[in-house]
């Protein structure tokens, strides 16, 4: 399985002085690192620190502008990825490179088999063999769309392991899709791989994972290596944090203690709700949900457990198949978004770039879509009035919104998130439904947004917060609900439960 030449060199791959620039931006500057056989090398860094650029150079997606990569005692070029793969480098992507409409077997055949044939029987045997060896249970005949994210990840890993000659495996933020219990078995699998001599590159921003398994750590900050250490020298969590964040002063998010004696009025209520998905299948059955004035309700669940459908139903984008939905005591029917907006509901969707950004339109024009109430000028729109209103708005200022004249499709992810959030906040919503507000953002922006949400709740907005980050949910929520097995479980009080319990419910539903 592992290349015989490994014995003759102390490393599988060695990178020296890797530099990559995009225009005036230097994404990676003189990166140095080694991947040794039978060891785990973690690349730690914040969003935007340059991890993904580095990883793409090592997987051959980008050609480095400077520097060299050594394998088997000679410099190699890994670009394009086919060449990297031929050299034995495999990659487990964060956004899995799988095709939902095809079976697991077909997906594996695509990348593993050669020629025009698929030797179904032998391939199936090999899949079963590898998956039992490393504890990667996955059904070869299932369609990928039927799998949850954990299973899809296992499929990706099997694919990499079955590819001939694999000796280095790059994992890109692998635990971001896993619940706490799954993380544990994932780390066990990494250990098995290490024992079999694979060289592993683990890209992550989670320090406790690094502490749990890494043999070596390279910390990236602003595209440079800010720190490197190995387990023999001793790994130190605090040193890693400061290497990761630098001297950035981070104000911790403060949440005032809830005043439990006060009974707040209910603003939104769903009774016996049932929601169907895009293909008419039941996604959530017979659930109850209640949100009160100024309350943050956190929604936990394995990705694809009905989060999107629930959010859409509460904003009127999707009809309830049965049950009732009332806002401020008034029943609302799905399908009429405007009625929901007029009742004070705002929605920040999970993929703002795809679902909210209109290419070629400026921030100002986006604001009119549903933010600032349109002021009419004859049959047209009074743009000057809207601009001054935007520039004077508290919400836009506190989120440091970019200039109103900039084109939205040229903004960074953080700026798009800010724009979408300001737009939702400018309407001063009574109820805010917000999906994954911190996904893909650096820690500074994340903290700003979290603080804003808390302030918003203090001023009386009820917030339904979808997040895949249990830390975030526990930090912000007044109560938690869990989506699992077509049911909505809870509410639970964060003070009376813990992450392991919530994680177990995410995995196994009520029985846990």
């Amino acid at each position, binding site marked *: 399985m592992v290349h015989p030449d490994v014995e003759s060199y102390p490393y599988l791959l060695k990178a020296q002085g890797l530099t990559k620039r995009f225009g005036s931006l230097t994404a990676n500057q003189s990166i140095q690192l080694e991947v040794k056989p039978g060891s785990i090398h973690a690349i730690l860094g914040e969003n935007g620190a340059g991890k993904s650029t580095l990883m793409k150079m090592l997987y051959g997606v980008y050609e480095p502008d400077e520097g060299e990569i050594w394998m088997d005692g000679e410099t190699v070029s890994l670009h394009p990825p086919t060449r990297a793969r031929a050299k034995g480098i495999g990659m487990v992507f964060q956004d899995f490179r799988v095709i939902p409409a095809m079976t697991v077997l077909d997906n594996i055949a695509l990348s593993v088999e050669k020629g025009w044939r698929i030797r179904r029987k032998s391939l199936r045997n090999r899949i079963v063999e590898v998956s039992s060896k490393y504890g990667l249970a996955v059904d070869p005949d299932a369609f990928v769309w039927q799998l949850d994210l954990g299973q899809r990840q296992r499929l990706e890993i099997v694919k990499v392991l079955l590819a001939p000659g694999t000796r280095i495996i790059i994992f890109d933020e692998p635990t971001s899709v896993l619940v706490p219990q799954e993380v544990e078995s994932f780390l066990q699998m990494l250990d098995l791989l290490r024992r079999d001599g694979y060289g592993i590159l683990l890209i992550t921003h989670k320090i406790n994972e690094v502490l749990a398994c890494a043999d070596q750590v390279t910390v990236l900050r602003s595209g440079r290596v800010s720190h490197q250490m190995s387990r023999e020298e001793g790994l130190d969590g605090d040193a890693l944090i400061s290497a990761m964040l630098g001297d950035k002063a981070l104000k911790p998010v403060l949440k005032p203690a809830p005043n439990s004696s006060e009974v707040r009025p209910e603003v939104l209520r769903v009774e016996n709700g049932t929601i169907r998905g895009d293909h008419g299948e039941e996604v959530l059955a017979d659930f109850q949900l209640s949100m009160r004035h100024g309350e943050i309700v956190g929604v936990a669940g394995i990705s694809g457990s009905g989060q999107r459908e629930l959010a859409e139903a509460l*904003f009127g*984008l999707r009809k309830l198949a049965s049950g009732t939905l009332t806002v401020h005591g008034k029943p609302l029917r799905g399908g*009429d*978004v*405007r009625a*929901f*907006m007029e009742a004070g509901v705002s*929605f920040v*969707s999970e993929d703002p770039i*795809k*679902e*909210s*950004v*209109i*290419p*070629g*339109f400026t921030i100002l*024009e986006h604001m*009119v*879509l*549903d933010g600032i109430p*349109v002021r*009419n000028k004859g*049959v*047209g*729109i009074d743009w000057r009035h809207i601009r001054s209103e935007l520039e004077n708005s508290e919400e836009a200022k506190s989120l440091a919104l970019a200039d109103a004249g900039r084109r939205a*499709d040229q903004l960074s992810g953080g700026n798009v998130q800010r724009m979408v959030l300001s737009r939702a906040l400018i309407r001063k919503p009574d109820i805010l439904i917000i999906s994954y507000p911190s996904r893909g953002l650096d820690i500074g922006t994340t903290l700003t947004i979290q603080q804003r949400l808390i302030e918003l709740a203090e001023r009386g907005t009820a917030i339904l917060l979808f997040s895949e980050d249990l830390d975030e949910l526990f930090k912000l929520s007044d109560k938690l609900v869990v989506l699992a097995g077509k049911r909505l479980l809870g509410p639970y009080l964060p003070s009376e439960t813990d992450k392991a319990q919530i994680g177990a419910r995410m995995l196994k539903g009520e029985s846990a």
Partner: protein
Amino acid sequence: MKQPTFVPVGVSGGIGPFRSNWKPLFKQLLVWLSPFVVFGVFLLFYHVNPLRLYGSMVQSTFGDLYGLGEVLLKATPFILTGLAAALPAKAGLVNVGGEGQLAIGALFATGSAVFLLERFPAWLGIPIMLLAGALGGALWGMLIAALKVKGRLNETITSVLLNYVAGYTVAFFVHGILKDPESFNWPYSPEIAWTLRLPIFDGTRLHVGFIIAIVLAIVVWYVLAKTRLGFRIRVLGSNRHAAERAGMNVNRTYFWVLVAAGALAGIAGMIEISGIEGRLRPTTGVNYGYFGFLAAMLAWNHPLKLLGTSFLLGMISVAGNTLEIGSGLPASSATILMGLVLLFILGGRRRAKR
């Protein structure tokens, strides 16, 4: 001739007045010239001198008033069916139903003229006939719209299929109850009353339908560029998810945009009858819907640029007739030239951003 300039990003919301873009001018020139070169080579095979042909094209267009009138006459229905494609395109729809909508519009207009408006004075009869044409086109557009909104069927495919149905519907009527009793078995309708014919400019065959088309193009441009309705349509066309999340009723917008497009093409049908032919034939306006679609594509679905591209297609159409008379090549050769122009434009475009 006013050559349209190009805004770089394909379907972006930009719909301001003409914006010039000098940098890729050479490339644009190449894109526009190449089809004429290719077609020229093709002509050489048939012993036609392309330079002479192109020369006579320009000559017959700008040489005298009559020639110019002919080109504008040809361009008129292209403007209207072009609008029928451009307006939905701004909402993100690919409507090719102009062909069928024009036919049904012509059918309604003729029907109303023959059965109802015979004795009406011009000031009343012509507007009613125009409305009848618009209604016919709108109904046909509504069919596509209903299939889109209620049946969730892609409008491109349904509109092409319905074009065939519309053609046979017209054939059914002109072979049946709309047939001229004095026609000796020829399938055409009786001639409409002279009071219902559109006034004509002296010295040409050009009629006021041309003015109607230009006014409608300006109206469509104004609505799209300057009004809230237009803003919403453009938002929908650029990102339907965003439009939904902004509380817009997407299906209702799709529906009425397609109906309005149908009405525009229906008006083209009425103008064909009232302005030129005077009676309905199975061949009335055949292919005009497709030409209009092409003109809209060439104009990036910009209603004002569409005036220019329709004019160009009008020139090519007239040249097709010249070809047929002058060198015995069939009029379909003009179709080839049009197809080539469009292919080069489509291929020469910058890749739209995802």
